[in-house]
């Protein structure tokens, strides 16, 4: 049996880490080594916008060591991702190229939502534990330096996800700027956080009942896991016990804690901020238990790789989460669920019948589904300018699991569904999309426009629509007794762009009941 060895490298804001995994069939993902070294890139990036040469040297030195270790393990493949410190560096492209030249390791920069998506995957990599917890009503709280991300799950599906600017470094910065006394810190954090969390509760949480809280953070959970000792991967604590741990942290002096935990003293206050935030959310949601799986980005990277390579059968359907998320957006902007579903149906039917022509895959089908669901959300803002407004809404809303470019594609399809298509001209390109992405936008727009024409009345008249490709014609046969004059009319108007893109003439046929 062949064993695949994979290295996941995460270039975090203050730590560079690598995990080596082994995939040996049997759906087994096994971590065989873990290396972490503290390199503070974040301070440079956040303060000066650039990473200093010394830090790049340090980074390269460690990456070079990583390559040696990878060689020793005979690693088959690796993936290296950089998070916010890399993302927000002005000269990221130059730095990354330099690193690639010097070490042979290509680091890709992760967008915020991609990073969160990988975080979810890292939790999912815990397999059975994850499934059991997420079946119940669950929230995932990710605590980062700049912001926190709260995602709600219900019955194994992501319901909503929101990013709040309450990251620990940010809060710590305020604490320092306003010279908040030690004794008053908790109050300050609480006030600052609750101002935002109250809104969050009103808008998204409402009276949704949440039972479990999954916490992903680099500050507080390592401590709890360490305290728990041996029981790796399974640190589930009841809320009361969590409060006890927090209580202990309140009383400890930073110098002592730093020695006991082997962390630098300046990290101790961050741990405290993180702990208070977890406490606030646990109270806000009235959760029963808190799970700190102690996973890191590396776990997510490896899980994603394994899924792609079909080394693991993913137990969780992440695409479903993304679609559910879009449905929720549609609902928030007063869109009709029925219409969205109908449109999605028609688009998918057309897409599938054209497989040979458009050459697009399942990921693109997902974009089309999302665009179908979201195509009208802009009318919440303006009935006249639906295209632009929808585009803005999609771009402004995070959808976990979509990369920035993917979101751009969906948003553009939504836009051009309503407004004039802008052609690609090499230099003056559409919102930074490359040629490939541009073509995808064009093809999906053509399909969506056609589908939209088929439901012009918004009455879902064409329920049993069938599509089949006959030479240069796409025959769409509708099984309905209703009057479809409106649809027919718009259909012809809309098919123009479709013909331009695919060189195929769509023909609508009504098959009346006997």
């Amino acid at each position, binding site marked *: 049996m062949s*064993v695949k060895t994979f290295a996941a490298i995460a270039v975090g804001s203050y730590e560079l880490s690598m995990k080596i995994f082994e995939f040996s069939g049997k759906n087994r993902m096994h971590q065989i080594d873990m290396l972490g070294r503290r390199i503070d890139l974040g301070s440079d990036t956040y303060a000066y916008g650039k990473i200093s040469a010394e830090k790049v040297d340090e980074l390269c030195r460690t990456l070079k060591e990583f390559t040696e270790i990878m060689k020793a393990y005979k690693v088959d493949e690796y993936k290296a991702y950089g998070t916010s410190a890399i993302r927000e560096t002005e000269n990221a492209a130059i730095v990354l190229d330099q690193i690639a030249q010097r070490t042979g390791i290509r680091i890709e920069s992760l967008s915020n939502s991609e990073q969160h998506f990988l975080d979810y995957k890292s939790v999912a990599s815990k397999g059975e534990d994850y499934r059991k917890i997420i079946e119940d009503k669950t929230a995932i709280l990710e605590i980062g330096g700049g912001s926190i991300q709260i995602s709600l799950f219900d019955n194994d599906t992501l319901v909503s996800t929101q990013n709040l600017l309450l990251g620990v470094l940010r809060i710590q910065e305020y604490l320092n700027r306003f010279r908040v006394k030690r004794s008053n810190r908790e109050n300050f954090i609480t006030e600052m956080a609750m101002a935002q969390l109250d809104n969050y509760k009103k808008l998204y949480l409402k009276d949704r009942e949440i039972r479990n809280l999954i916490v992903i953070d680099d500050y507080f959970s*390592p401590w709890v896991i*360490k305290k728990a*000792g041996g029981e790796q991967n399974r640190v589930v604590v009841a809320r009361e016990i969590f409060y006890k741990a927090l209580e202990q942290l309140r009383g400890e002096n930073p110098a002592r804690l730093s020695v006991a935990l082997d962390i630098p003293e300046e990290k101790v206050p961050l741990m405290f901020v993180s702990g208070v935030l977890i406490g606030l959310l646990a109270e806000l949601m009235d959760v029963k238990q808190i799970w700190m799986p102690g996973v890191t980005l590396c776990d997510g990277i490896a899980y994603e790789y394994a899924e792609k390579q079909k080394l693991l059968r993913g137990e969780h359907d992440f695409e479903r989460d993304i679609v559910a998320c879009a449905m929720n957006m549609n609902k928030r902007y007063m869109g009709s669920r029925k219409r969205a579903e109908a449109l999605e149906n028609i688009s998918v039917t057309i897409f599938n019948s054209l497989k040979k022509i458009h050459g697009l895959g399942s990921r693109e089908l997902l974009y089309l589904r999302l665009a179908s669901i979201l195509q009208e959300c802009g009318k919440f803002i303006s009935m006249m300018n639906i295209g632009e407004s929808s585009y803005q809404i999609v771009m402004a809303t995070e959808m976990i699991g979509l990369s920035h470019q993917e979101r751009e594609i969906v948003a553009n399809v939504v836009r051009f569904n309503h407004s004039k298509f802008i052609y690609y001209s090499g230099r003056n390109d559409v919102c930074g999309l490359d040629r490939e992405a541009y073509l995808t936008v064009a093809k999906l727009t053509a399909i969506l426009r056609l589908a939209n024409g088929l439901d012009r009345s918004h009455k879902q008249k064409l329920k049993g629509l069938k599509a089949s490709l006959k030479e240069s014609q796409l025959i769409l046969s509708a099984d309905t007794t209703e009057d479809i004059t409106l649809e027919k009319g718009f259909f012809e108007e809309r098919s123009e762009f479709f013909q331009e893109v695919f060189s195929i003439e769509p023909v609508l046929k009504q098959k009346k009941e006997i």
Partner: protein
Amino acid sequence: MGAIDFCNPKYYTNRELSWILFDRRVLGEARDKNIPLFERLKFLSITASNLDEFFMVRVASLKDMVNAGYDKKDIAGMTPAEQLAAIDTAIHELVDMQYSTWNRSLTPQLAKNGLLVIGGHEALTEEEGVFVDRYFEENVYPVLTPMAVDSSRPFPLIRNKSLNIAALVRKKDGKGELEFAMVQVPSVLSRIIQLPTDGKARRVILLEEIIERNMNKLFLNYDIVCAHPFRIMRNADLTIEEDEAEDLLKEIEKQLKKRQWGEAIRLEVEEGMDKKLLKILRTELHMEEQNIYEINGPLDLTVLMKLYGLEGYEHLKTPKYISQPVPELPQGCDIFERIREGDILLHHPYQTFEPVVDFIRQAARDKEVLAIKQTLYRVSGNSPIIAALAQAAENGKQVTVLVELKARFDEENNIVWARMLEKAGCHVIYGLVGLKTHSKITLVVRREEDGIRRYVHLGTGNYNDATAKLYTDVGLMTCSEDIGEDATAVFNMLSGYSEPLVWNRLSVAPLWLKDKFLYLIDREKKNAQEGREAHIIAKMNSLCDRNVIAALYEASAAGVRIELIVRGICCLKTGIKGVSENITVRSIVDNFLEHSRIFYFENGGNYEIYCGSADWMPRNLERRVEILFPVNSPGLKEELLHILECQLKDNVKASELKPDGTYVKPDKRGRSLFQSQEFFCQEAIRKAKAASDEIAAVSRTFIPAQHAEE
């Protein structure tokens, strides 16, 4: 009952004084008439080399403290100055006893057995005189560097631990003042010179006597007024400024050269040295009265080890013991396969160290091995392990070696090996800043059909095939996944990566090994309080950590039975009412140096056994990287318990610590004698024989053809 303060200094013994008691126990062996004569020479020699090291490190650092005006009290409530005073008295007593042993019992015994050590050149016969003078001219004279002191030539630098002859000389013309002159006794020549024999008794003389006799040939224009040997000891405590040290390796090389010229802290002179001569030495070396030792006999008794090595006299030595094969690991077996069958325990030197070397040799050759990682602390000259590691690197394996440069007195040696490994392509780590890496661990990563498998060897002794024949140690070979993961984490940490969140099985100092011990002791205490069986047996080299001792006192007071087997320093006192009535301490000093550390905890009937590299000393638990590993397989646990039980049964080589602070051999009347080391030797032979018989039995069995029954 009022609460007892278990940390009260009156419950503790000063560690230096306890160490001196240990050296006296070794001296006790040299005085034991039941021991073969040449073995007694060896023990006497050991007491001398021990004492040298003690001076260079312990006395030196106490002097530093006094000089620096540091007067923090030790565990027993003594200031450095008080300690020095107490030590001086104790050492003078010890030295007197060393030389009375030499003069009164060993020299006459040697003479009786036909070996005459001539005390002074004055006692040579005429023919012998001619012989040594010729020997001097041919062999000694060319390597000598005589030095005289006058206004134009300053007082020479005298090398640490070197043996020298000092003389007062006067110009031949009879005028002028007495001048100081000296010459170093060359260490490149053998210090023992055999005189021609007429076939009867063998006669030997020491080199310095021959030089003394020929002093006039070194200072031709002078008359030799008097000449006497002397020896000095210098402060050698190596404290490295690591924060400033750009390159640790270079720094240590620099320190090594400096070490020879540290402050002089001990002066040994021949008894009856001319007063004027002594005064010059005293003034020039800034010696205080109490640090001068007037010696009645040859200076530097470590020479007796050379005497031990003289050919012949085998009947006066203990027959050499040959380490036995390990039954689980017969020669030529596939070690990895054997480890996969189950954990293996090695007990050195009763069992051979060869499998450990083979483990690395096989790993170096094995196609599937990806990486070998090892910590090296003290390595023997010509180490086969180094050769195997270099081989592995040349075969393209990733080889990571941590060479601890801070191993006391061995730095020079270690630097050479480290360089050699680097050349072969190994990744060499030169220890950690601020911490000495004392743990003994080897990790072999092997790619097997179902993925990576890790093989680990953990030991209580260094990877030194030479000392493995002399030190008692235990080692464990395992491929347990938990321990393998931990071992990987240990090496990652040694390479400068972060500590893992969770350790599976190993406890690592200085991270939290001490907490682990305190926890284990406390657990016994709680068990005792709840009326359960509570029992601790711990075997180690030294016990001087205040927190651990206080915890032991508390446990004892709660009713835990505590049996300690501590070879050397023990700051704990036994038999204090309400404090340590349940604690016994015994020390075993025998042919092999007791070195293994084994810890037994009753744990309410489900006993646990740990082994490791750490003593219960603050330096082990706080300033070194140490590993404590549990032994889980029931069979191996029993073996370890058996080792402890045998040592507790020993009534020949064990001494027990009495409440008055003395060590006394147990009462043997009416009891059969039991000597644990001897027993282990015999046991290893029996086991090896049984195993080889079994193999023989298998290979020699014929299978007769049977009549096929219907």
